[in-house]
């Protein structure tokens, strides 16, 4: 195994949780820090395969140029669209105050 990766710290796990929008608890941080480190250690051997000239494979059966014609198809009835929503107002999905900027 060629695991030269630095150990995953609790802070790094907290950062990952933040990126992934997971409000993890302190206990989970400790648990995950340990477990993720073991898992990443086990998968680090992926680096052993010297493969600079190997092309990546994304799909088993290579396909390309799969398109649909530019034709309008029926949308869902709006009551179906909104039926599963946790909160609705004026036929829109209602969400709490957004802190981040518009992208």
């Amino acid at each position, binding site marked *: 195994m060629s695991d030269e990766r630095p150990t995953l710290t609790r802070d790094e796990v907290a950062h990952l949780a933040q990126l992934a929008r997971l409000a993890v608890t302190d206990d989970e941080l400790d648990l995950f820090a340990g477990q993720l480190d073991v898992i990443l250690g086990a998968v680090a051997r992926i680096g052993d395969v010297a493969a600079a000239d190997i092309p990546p494979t994304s799909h088993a059966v290579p396909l390309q140029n799969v398109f649909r014609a530019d034709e309008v*198809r029926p949308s869902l009835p709006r009551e179906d669209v909104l039926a599963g929503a946790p909160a609705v107002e004026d036929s*829109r999905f209602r969400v709490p105050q957004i802190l*981040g900027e518009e992208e």
Partner: protein
Amino acid sequence: MTVRDDVQLDLSYDSVVRRFAPVIGLETHVELGTVSKMFCGCSTEFGAEPNTHTCPVCLGLPGALPVVNAKAIEYTIRIGLALNCSIAEWCRFARKNYFYPDMPKNFQISQYDEPLCVDGHLDVVVEGQTYRVGIERVHMEEDTGKNTHVGGATGRIHGAEYSLVDFNRAGIPLIEIVTKPVEGTGPLAPEVAKAYVTELRDILRSLGVSDVKMEQGSLRCDVNTSLSPIGVSEWGTRTETKNVNSLRSVERAVRSEIIRQAAILDRGGKIKQETRHFQETTGETRSGRSKEEATDYRYFPEPDLVPVAPARDWVAEIRASLPELPAARRTRLKSELGLSTEDLQQMVNAGVVEAVGETVQAGASATEARNWWMGYLAEQANSREVEPTSLPITPAQVARVILLVADGKLSTALARQAVDGVLQTGKDVDAIVAERGLAVVSDTSELTRAADEAIAANPDVADKVRGGKVAAVGALVGAVMKATRGQADAPAVRQILLQQLGVSE
């Protein structure tokens, strides 16, 4: 680093650009004019009831999968070719991962390091000088939904109590056109930026790939600006200004950002690399609230889609089908309409070259077409704070008005009423003319009766005219025109009045 408050340098634009060289870059988003969305069959029609143009795919429902709209690929290739780009032999979509409530999947399907079109250019002319704007890439992506912010004073995100999301726009095909950094413009950076966006818009319109309405958001612009002291070759730190929603704003945003950055640099300060927002009301840019974390989009190839490898003969076919582009058309119009370079430049600056050309194509005379677009229509656009070409009137409709005047069926005043009617109602010229009874009154007996009434109602004016002050007849002409609701032919009215008063010129 010391920040000096005591230095009072001249922060007028002219002074600033004597000390600093601006480098600009533009990222333009264009909604393509396909009838269905990028990855599903929902309609792209603007202005529908909220959440009625949505389906499992564009709502990001669990299990739904995207399928690429062939027309969007074709349109993107058209754009790439018109911008002198190379069309990739093979490219892919990628996922751009970030959380935002207007993005149903919390990732955007976009293109990352393998865009469809790369390495092109677009020439723009400002003050007689040609500037070549390099095109870095043209790539495809999907639009987001629309948030409405409720509560708080401004309807802006800041201070809102909550927000409402409509996904009708989510998944509309979007292309992003990214320029290379544009150097060497000196003080003309704002004008070059505006000229680029104008030219781009005209190209996109002539390609028929988008309705390019900035006010409806189908063309949106982000402007990057940096300054370096004259003589220093490294570029300064750049800022990205978003929310630039009109051609005029492009120019204003660059200008105000140049002044703002110069003020900081003059005091020995550092420019913060950040996203700023253009404020239409003040003409200034405002800092976005800084994010706690550096953005990490975690791009990776979209596994739900397969690569796009446009066949070379398809690309050749698209190239062959490109229409005449604005630059070529301008050259042609210039000679066909006998325009001077200055006339042409004025029309370019007013953004009406295309419109004039199309109006002529629809049968109007070149002079009249030019006069209408540079005159009355420009005034109307100005008072509505839109571009002339964004007025709800088509070149064909303008041409129809011009023909009616040429045929003597409308006077200039009536023609303006007809145009007003089109602008107000969106109806056709002939419908407005019929509905409002707009027609030149040429019935002499009717005009004579109106003239007599005007003379009777204004005896003192009549006396002046009889006394030799012929110019005073204008007041009587005005009275007759008013009485006939502008439908009389003014020179004819004048003749009749003079005749009734027994005066000759």
